């Protein structure tokens, strides 16, 4: 019983890591622009596909060169995927969100635009690459360790480690660097910041670079853990991660991180002890309860709007 419980804690840490990584991206963009970037789940999906093609290329499957060993492919694929996915995120910002922001339209329209961008990415991918699934190559052979009756794989440890490191890095950037300070400033007052000589657009682009880059990272590790990728993989997990971010307190890095793990824990634990049909029912009831007690989320701080 205890072993099952410990095993499920490990399972939940792995599953929650993905929610956390995606929730971090939602949180960054929301924190700066107060925009719910509904395309984020699909940027995560695009990240997984970019990772797929990067890895196939680096493994020499396209015949351009002989190919590298798996661990080296992983080491090169991580920055490459992050950069390329960031390019996709920034492109979306440039062609979809910025023109609307320039015109000063209501935020609602931007949110709808984000939803549409997500659908365009999904269906664009479907049209371009077809509906059949891709099998992600094995980069690092899976090693299974058994400690006190609990089984761990090297991939599982890697995923959890990556999630924690990403959180620490983002937390450091937002709270300890100059550009992080600028991000928080824009979030605090979008109109006063340019008057202080801070290039708001640069900061916003940087935010999208960070958010999308980490979505790409999540995509890469997700595809390594669940090696079957398809164009719809991002939609559901994206929405759930968004809810996790809201429960954690959207706008707070620590909140998004904790919210992702919380959702992962609840989902895994419910499935471990109840039929799986109860999973979303119980998981979201608990989240609803948390929100009704703390409407700003676990780590959120209430903001007053000045009229």
């Amino acid at each position: 019983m205890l072993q099952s419980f410990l095993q499920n804690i490990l399972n939940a840490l792995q599953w929650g890591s993905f929610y956390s990584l995606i929730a971090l991206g939602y949180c960054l963009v929301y924190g700066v622009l107060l925009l719910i970037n509904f395309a984020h789940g699909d940027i995560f999906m695009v990240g997984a596909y970019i990772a797929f093609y990067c890895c196939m290329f680096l493994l020499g499957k396209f015949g351009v060169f002989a190919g590298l060993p798996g661990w080296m492919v992983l080491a090169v694929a991580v920055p490459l995927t992050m950069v390329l996915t960031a390019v996709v995120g920034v492109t979306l910002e440039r062609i979809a969100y910025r023109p609307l922001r320039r015109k000063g339209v209501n935020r609602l329209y931007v949110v709808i635009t984000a939803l549409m961008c997500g659908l365009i990415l999904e269906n664009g991918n479907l049209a371009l690459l077809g509906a059949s699934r891709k099998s992600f190559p094995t980069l690092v052979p899976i090693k299974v360790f058994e400690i006190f009756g609990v089984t761990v794989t090297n991939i599982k440890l890697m995923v959890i480690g990556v999630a924690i490191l990403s959180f620490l890095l983002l937390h450091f950037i937002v709270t300890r660097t100059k550009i992080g300070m600028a991000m928080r400033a824009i979030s605090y007052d979008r109109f006063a910041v340019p008057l202080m000589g801070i290039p708001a657009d640069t900061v916003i682009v940087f935010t999208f670079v960070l958010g999308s880059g980490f979505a790409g990272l999540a995509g890469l590790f997700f595809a390594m853990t669940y090696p079957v990728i398809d164009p719809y993989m991002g939609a559901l997990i994206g929405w759930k991660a968004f809810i996790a971010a809201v429960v954690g307190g959207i706008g707070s890095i620590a909140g998004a991180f904790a919210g992702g793990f919380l959702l992962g824990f609840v989902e895994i634990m419910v499935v471990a002890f109840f039929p799986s049909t109860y999973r979303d029912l119980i998981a979201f009831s608990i989240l609803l309860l948390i929100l009704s007690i703390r409407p700003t989320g676990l780590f959120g701080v209430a903001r007053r709007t000045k009229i």
Partner: protein
Amino acid sequence: MKRSWLIALFCVLGLASPVRAADTVKLGFNIPLTGDIPDVGESSKNAAEMLKKKINDAGGLKVGDKTYKVEFIYEDNESKAESALSATRKLITQDGVIGMVGPQSSKQAVPAAEAANELKTPMMAPWSTNPNTTKARPYVFRGCFLDTFQGPTAAKFATEEFKAKKAAVLYDIASDYPKGLAEDFKAAFEKINGPGSVVAFETFTTKDVDFSAQLTNIAKSGAEVLFVPQYYNEVPLIVQQAKSLGFNKPVLGSDSWGSGDLMGLCGDNCKGFFFVTHYAAAGAQGKTKEFIDEYTKLYKKTPDDVAALTWDGANLMLAALQSAGPLSGDLAKDREALMKAMAGIKKFEGITGNMSYPATGDHDPIKCAVVVKIDDAGKFAFYKSVCP
């Protein structure tokens, strides 16, 4: 100017269509060309196109004393129940097909069958193994065996082959096919090995990718075999995660394993496992071999069971159409005549084996199942034939 062009165009179309309709017969295909299992749709379409070409190249289909060209209309049901319904209605009311082949998986076939039966149009479900598809629906026919047969076959095989006394099941509770099959397997296995011998009966929901909590329970339950009646997109994930959680016992599958790109997605992880299915491509003879060779030549891949069953299903429908006698041109009358002719077929020699239909009751064929082993080369090799 523009308008007169349009009017002229409509006139031409108006004149042309009755002429065309007079010497073609239309069959509709309600198949998943996109969605969760696009490979199933592709196989169905490939087999149908091959059949159409074969018939039309030979001059057409002779019904009564007239020869008709066959026309196949493919409607995508996106592997969703709702879309399968609208595709059914579109094929029947707008396209005016005389009969419909598909949908393939039970999730879409059960609701679509209800609509087809209501609209009094013959439907052939080649691959749907859920009993509800044909239950009390005189217009609906089936081309394969039932879950109620497949479940006990798998249970019997698990007991005999692996000497298993305890089994585990992992299935998608939100989908008709795995749910029905999982329950049949459980009932049959417990009948052989005593109540409680299915030690873990775990569920998940469509589109899940993480099964770690369920597989943790299964690994700790002491089960000697795991039955997974799932599709090719979920099996690789389940098999891989089971191994990562320390479950090293055999995994047994159902006919849904055989379709789609299972080996491309699963690779070495699935080798050595068994599944129950309709036919095995490796080691086929006679008509089946001819079909496999021609299909392989055309599409550069071995036909899966969906392709073979679609071929049989469409063939059976066309054979019945020939025996129904001359067409009256009135769709409602012709559809009824086709239904009666299909119900009149007692025995049909298909490439997936002989099918015989019971004289009364639901139109479910009696045919043998095949147990296939995935060999070290990743081929689906014939292992054992199990007949009712």
